[in-house]
């Protein structure tokens, strides 16, 4: 494993006339898990898509080892930088082994034959994601959790040192969400893969991230360890939500408890009312 420097440098990007990212700087720590959080439409997906060259920036650059990724040949880039998009499509009837082997695309050329190295990459991707027993099954017959593991296996077969994932736990049951995040952590620990992902769930983000990026209105609002970033102030400023932060007894990471208007034990109600009054 080689360590790569990976950073967004004064990045502005958007669609049509809407500018979504504004002059954003972010340096990804090699060999770590970085999780991007933020409210809907804050630009977190746009950031991930721009950093994986799916969107061409208006200004600024995404630098991989000091070189702009938008000027690197795409095949070469795909051997270092992998991406699992939010909704990949599995062709009808494709088997798991076939799908995972497509991750080898950037390592093959027009006339090159399938090599033992390719087979080994597929094998180790299946093993790492515990999908080996599914290898001959059609992807459309699998459960949501299994399917997501297979897609991660495809991204693993690509053997990139950096892996970006856009909400890899969306639509999964909670047990499968944990399974996927554990798997990514294994991968990060065993291979030193740099993982950058967008997650919706703040508490899961805080539990699994080495570094959290909180975004609002196309900018990085806070960046640092989960303890530094996941604060009551941040939740209020980024999500407009009153909350309490306590320590998760299981992971010893911060955990956010939202405060709504209902269903509160009486002293908590008092606590909030007091705060509200103070603000008025």
């Amino acid at each position, binding site marked *: 494993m080689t360590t790569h420097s990976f950073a967004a440098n004064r990045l502005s990007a958007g*669609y049509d006339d809407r500018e979504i990212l504004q002059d954003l700087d972010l340096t990804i720590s090699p060999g770590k898990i970085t999780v991007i959080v933020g409210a809907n439409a804050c630009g977190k997906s746009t950031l991930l898509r721009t950093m994986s060259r799916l969107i061409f920036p208006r200004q600024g650059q995404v630098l991989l080892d000091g070189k702009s990724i938008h000027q690197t040949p795409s095949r070469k880039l795909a051997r270092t930088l992998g991406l699992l998009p939010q909704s990949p499509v599995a062709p009808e009837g494709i088997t798991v082994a076939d799908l995972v082997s497509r991750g080898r695309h950037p390592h093959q050329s027009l006339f090159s034959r399938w090599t033992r190295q390719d*087979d080994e990459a597929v094998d180790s991707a299946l093993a*790492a994601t515990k999908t080996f027993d599914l*290898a001959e099954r059609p992807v459309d017959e699998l459960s949501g959790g299994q399917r997501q593991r297979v897609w991660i296996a495809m991204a693993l077969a690509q053997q990139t040192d950096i892996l970006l994932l856009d909400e890899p736990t969306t639509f999964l049951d909670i047990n499968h969400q944990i399974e996927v995040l554990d798997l990514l952590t294994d991968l990060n620990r065993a291979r030193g893969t740099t993982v950058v992902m967008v997650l919706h769930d703040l508490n899961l983000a805080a539990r699994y991230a080495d570094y959290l990026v909180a975004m609002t209105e196309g900018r990085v609002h806070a960046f640092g360890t989960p303890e530094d970033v996941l604060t009551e102030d941040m939740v209020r400023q980024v999500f407009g939500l009153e909350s309490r932060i306590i320590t998760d007894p299981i992971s010893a990471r911060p955990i956010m408890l939202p405060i709504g208007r209902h269903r509160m034990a009486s002293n908590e109600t008092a606590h909030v009312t007091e705060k509200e009054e103070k603000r008025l």
Partner: protein
Amino acid sequence: MTELAPTVDLIINSRRRRAGRHAVLLALLIAVVLALFGITLSVGQSFTPPVEVIRVLIGQDLPGTSFTVAQLRLPRAVLSILAGMCFGLGGVAFQVMLRNPLASPDIIGITSGAGAAAVFAIVVLSMTGPMVSILAVAAGLCVAVLVYGLSFRNGIAGTRLILVGIGMSAMLQSVIAYILSSAPAWSLQEAMRWLTGSVNGAQLSQALPLFLALVLFGGLLLSRTRDLEALQLGDDTAAALGVRVATTRMLIIVCAVGMIATATAVTGPIAFVAFLAGPIAARIVRGNGSLLLPSALVGAILVLAGDYVGQLLLPSRYPVGVVTGALGAPYLIFLIVRVNRTGGSL
């Protein structure tokens, strides 16, 4: 990951098994094409023993039989195979690239565009030969670009492209009908060719443009098999795998349109062959490798068999497009109903 050594063999075996099945299926499809080719040459209005067919094919002159086999049946069979392959390959390329079986060139107006240009060139401009093909290819490309451009909004949405294409197709069909109806002394035979496609009156010289299109565009397309397989997983995934999505898509469109339009300029828009070949091939291949070659062969089978049925097995003679059209229309309805429910892809 520690037990890597033994399991990798299972992976290798599984891959070889898939490749093996693919080879067997290809061989079977080729056998069916050859069988249909043989039947077309020997069993027509009259029966010619296979031995005599072979003697004619290697150049011997048998009075009467030579004319039937070499002048009537052979051009028809050869043209059917080549046109079928062009339609099948061009159709499946679109369907796979846009991940939708409805995105076939004969549904989204490209075939009608090429057909309208060919009819215009022949009827109005009195052109013949290669110029007609060139004009048809150019018109097919224009329609492709137009449909693509009209349905472009923050990237291509499959449904929008298909709806725009269906509208375009209807419009161009009426152009064909208008030119045909205003043409003086136009035979019903010829009109049928441009409305549903036919290999009536086939001549061996017409095979040349088809053959060239297959070699040039088909070869280029086959060389992009892996890129197409990556595109099947979605544009984002393909880009992440190192495919230059926009460039690859342009190349695939040019190749597919080149084949479809060349074939249309020769045989007319043989109904639904481009649309049916891919999905039928997908049922046969069932995840064992690429759909490109199998679809080309299924296209050849559809046209050969459709023409045979239309000429000999029905109470009266019909051009091949009527037969393939009768097959394709119910499938189109089935697909629209099903896609509405599942949003299925190829």
